[in-house]
C-alpha cells in the first residue's frame, strides 16, 4: 500500500469515527489559526461532540484532503461523513436552520449547549 492510500485510509477512518470532524490548524485546546478557532467556537455553540484533527504540519495529509474535497483551505468540516466546507458554508446553513436539522438527524437528539449558571 503506498502513502497516498495509507493517508486516504487514515482520513476515512477519522471521518467515520467522528460525526463532526474538523481538520484544522492546531488543536481544540490550542488552535493555531483564527479560522480554526472560529470553527471550534461555532460548533461549541451547538452542544454536540466534535473532534479537531491538527494537520498544520502534515503537508501530505493536507494535500490528500484538498484533492479529495476540491477545497484548498483549512479548516475543513465533515458532518456524518459528508464534506461541508468551512464556516462560510455552515454559517449561512445555520442561519437558515438547515444545519440544525442535519445535526439532529446525525445525532438523533438535540444538542446540549453548555449552560451558564448565574449565582446572584
Amino acid at each position: 500500500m503506498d502513502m497516498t492510500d495509507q493517508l486516504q485510509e487514515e482520513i476515512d477512518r477519522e471521518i467515520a469515527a467522528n460525526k463532526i470532524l474538523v481538520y484544522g490548524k492546531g488543536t481544540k485546546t490550542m488552535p493555531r489559526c483564527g479560522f480554526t478557532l472560529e470553527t471550534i467556537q461555532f460548533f461549541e455553540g451547538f452542544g454536540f461532540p466534535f473532534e479537531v484533527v491538527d494537520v498544520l504540519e502534515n503537508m501530505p495529509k493536507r494535500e490528500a484532503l484538498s484533492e479529495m474535497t476540491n477545497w484548498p483551505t483549512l479548516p475543513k468540516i465533515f458532518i456524518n461523513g459528508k464534506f461541508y466546507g468551512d464556516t462560510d458554508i455552515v454559517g449561512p446553513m445555520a442561519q437558515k436552520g438547515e444545519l440544525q436539522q442535519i445535526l439532529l438527524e446525525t445525532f438523533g437528539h438535540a444538542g446540549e449547549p453548555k449552560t451558564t449558571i448565574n449565582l446572584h
Partner: protein
Amino acid sequence: MIDDTSLTALIRAEIPDAQVDIVDRTGTMDHFNVTVRSSAFAGKTLIEQHQLVYATLKAALKDGRVHAVELKTLLPDGNGHD
C-alpha cells in the same frame, strides 16, 4: 502576497463574468475577504460555488501567494444560492 488585480485575473480566467470585490484583512496582502458575483453560480449549491472559485485559486493557495480566504459567492442579481 498578491495584488487585487492579479487575484481578480486568476478568478476571471476561469469565471469570465465574475465581479470580484477584495478586502485585504491583515494588510499583508495574503489574507483576503473575497466576494465573487457570477452567473456561473446559478443552479449550484453554496459548496459547489465555493469549489468553483477555489479551483481558480488553487495554485496561488498552494504556493503561498494567498494564505487564507473568506469567501462569499453571489449571483449577479444579488442573492446567493438556493
